[in-house]
């Protein structure tokens, strides 16, 4: 049956077979964009005389952030893009995942102490905890409409962060050991990227690693950059796994149900769909994935503190998803990458280029910069911009969002026809004698098909 499917149907661009071609071509598209960006930055760097090590370091940082943003954006896309659940408490669910992992895996003699369990248990535990908190959040969420739901999630996220920060949970004694969240100073634990040294001792991975380090020495790239790149490689594996999982979910009757809830929940209910249950399930799954993404991101540091989970983090994720196009998994990944490469790390690369060429010093205020500009010294303004780059990025993000709303309100890949079905719907059955088959299908369909 399924062998003779023809997918290249000309007039049905984007209406494709669910299994192979669409995701394969989309992964190709993502890889193409990423490589083109790499080449662009590398050529720009080499032409302007930035060292190979600095370029490699920059690209590795870009890829790291691209991967983590893609992970969270994919999870958020399941909530917001697909189901229409306006979750603006992403940071909170990430915090639950990371803190749970930290408490499960931190050394028992640390301060605050952890349970000293192996990292995989911590990772799974973090995901489960985030999903359970998602369940708790979903219960009131069923009673409120979209915008109120957003407030509930934001509130919950802040409650989580402030609880972690609070003195009451800072430390408490159980059986002579000081447990707790560590308040503002956080918890120390073994980072999840310790998987890289462990992997480097395994046969195949170790061999590949040695080659990479050798190659790095030839090109003048420091081992620490390569070490980071290897962990980023692990993240990419997770991105692909997330992508495939979510593609699978969204190209299915379950995904169709999610879209129906987004479009018109009452209509879905009137067709006999238990939308409440579906919303709870999808919210828990998304939160679990956010927890995992948080672990892979923040968990690669050896310290977690509440400051990493400010509401602004949620905002960044939303920017990434909006840029990519909500409702599209491919768009989520591309959005994560575009955000990291062009909005977040790109400006820093420009700074690196400028600093290799000119010893620009930032004047104390923008007024001084303009005075110097008036006096024929443009470098002062450049210096000011470079010096306050981290703040200027916010303006950049705002400008890009505004331009996007004007020119591409659906994001780079939004509004593509991504049909939620487990099979190719464009394939028409052979029977074409109209009413007759229709009648039969209408009356006997239910019984004969099952």
């Amino acid at each position, binding site marked *: 049956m399924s062998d003779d499917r023809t997918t290249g149907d000309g007039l049905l661009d984007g209406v494709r077979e669910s299994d192979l071609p669409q995701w394969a071509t989309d992964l190709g598209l993502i890889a193409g964009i990423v490589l083109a960006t790499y080449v662009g930055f590398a050529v720009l760097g080499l032409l302007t005389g930035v060292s190979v090590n600095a370029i490699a370091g920059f690209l590795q940082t870009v890829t790291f952030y691209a991967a983590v943003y893609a992970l969270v954006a994919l999870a958020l896309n399941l909530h917001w893009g697909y189901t229409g659940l306006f979750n603006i408490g992403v940071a909170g669910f990430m915090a639950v995942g990371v803190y749970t992992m930290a408490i499960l895996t931190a050394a028992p003699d640390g301060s605050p102490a952890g349970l000293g369990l192996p990292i995989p248990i911590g990772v799974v535990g973090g995901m489960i905890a985030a999903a359970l908190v998602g369940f708790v959040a979903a219960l009131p969420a069923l009673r409120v409409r979209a915008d109120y739901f957003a407030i509930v999630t934001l509130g919950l996220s802040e409650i989580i962060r402030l609880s972690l920060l609070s003195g009451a949970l800072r430390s408490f004694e159980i059986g002579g050991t000081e447990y707790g969240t560590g308040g503002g100073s956080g918890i120390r634990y073994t980072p999840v990227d310790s998987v890289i040294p462990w992997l480097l001792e395994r046969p195949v991975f170790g061999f590949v690693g040695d080659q990479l380090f050798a190659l790095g020495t030839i090109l003048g790239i420091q081992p620490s950059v390569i070490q980071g790149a290897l962990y980023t490689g692990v993240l990419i594996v997770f991105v692909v796994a997330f992508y495939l999982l979510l593609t699978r979910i969204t190209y299915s009757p379950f995904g169709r149900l999610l879209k129906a809830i987004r479009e*018109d929940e009452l209509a879905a209910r009137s067709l006999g769909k238990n939308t409440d249950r579906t919303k709870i399930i999808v919210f828990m799954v998304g939160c679990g994935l956010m927890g995992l993404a948080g672990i892979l991101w923040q968990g690669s540091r050896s310290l977690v503190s509440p400051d990493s989970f400010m509401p602004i983090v949620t905002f960044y994720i939303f920017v990434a998803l909006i840029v990519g196009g909500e409702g599209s998994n491919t768009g989520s990944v591309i959005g994560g990458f575009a955000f990291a490469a062009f909005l977040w790390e790109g400006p820093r690369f420009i700074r690196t280029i400028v600093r290799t060429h000119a010893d620009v010093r930032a004047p104390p205020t923008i007024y001084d910069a303009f005075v110097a500009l008036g006096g024929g010294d443009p470098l002062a303004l450049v210096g000011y911009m470079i010096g306050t780059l981290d703040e200027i990025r916010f303006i950049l993000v705002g400008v890009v969002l505004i331009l996007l709303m004007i020119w591409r309100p659906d994001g780079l890949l939004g509004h593509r026809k991504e049909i939620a079905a487990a099979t190719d719907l464009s394939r028409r059955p052979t029977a074409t004698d109209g009413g007759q088959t229709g009648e039969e299908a209408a009356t006997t369909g239910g019984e004969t098909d099952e």
Partner: protein
Amino acid sequence: MSDVETEPTADAATTTSEDSTEATGSRLDEMPILRVDDLVKRFGGITAIDGASFEVERGTITGLIGPNGAGKSTTFNCITGVHEPSEGSVVFEGTDITSRRTHQIATEGLVRTFQIARELPEMTVLENMMLAPQGQLGESLWRSVAPIARREVVREEEQLRQRAWDTLEFFEIDHLAHDYAGTLSGGQRKLLEMARALLTDPEMMLLDEPMAGVNPSLEKKLLEHVHELQEQGYTFLLVEHDMDVIMNHCEHVIVMHQGQVLAEGPAAEIKSNDEVIEAYLGGEV
């Protein structure tokens, strides 16, 4: 020996059970498919429905008419669980469905369409259709994801696709299958909504002003579809303002006025009912 003795007993048992099935079958046939008893719905101080009672016979096209604000749509909402009735009961197919959840009522075989069509705009017509069938395996998350179960889901999807296409052909909107439902015209949306409701395999359909905003030729087609479906055994209850439709196509008419059932009976009788004429028809007919 024992064999001989047991045989008649077995036969007798079978006969009895057949008899009883027949009996229940006929009893079900005689019973109205939908019974609404003393339905009351209050919104704060306003009583939208004030003790409405009526029955809908199986296999009929029944019309529900009344002036604006008579409580017709609220009645629909109470029957389908969108609103919880303040008092009274709704019995469908012998089952009390009062204050059941909307999706449970639809699962029982009582589906509705809306006064303003509620298509799912950013989904294609075909996706809209594929949503409707009940009890899809793939609506469970793990079946949609797990490789072992996925094959079954794909097979089911292929069957559903067939039904979806057939039903679209029946309603003659198959040429729109790949368009976003939001781009359809008002009349086409009404057709889509009815086609979609049909794919849930209902026993009975509640149509809320199915002809509103539909051009005459499409209206004729819609009515033809309704009659064809009636012949296949479906029951219809429709709210409609077009008197021609009500008088020419409904066997039975229920007239609501100020939240109560003012009159009930065959179309011809209703036409000549003085109260109805005064309340609703304005003495014209």
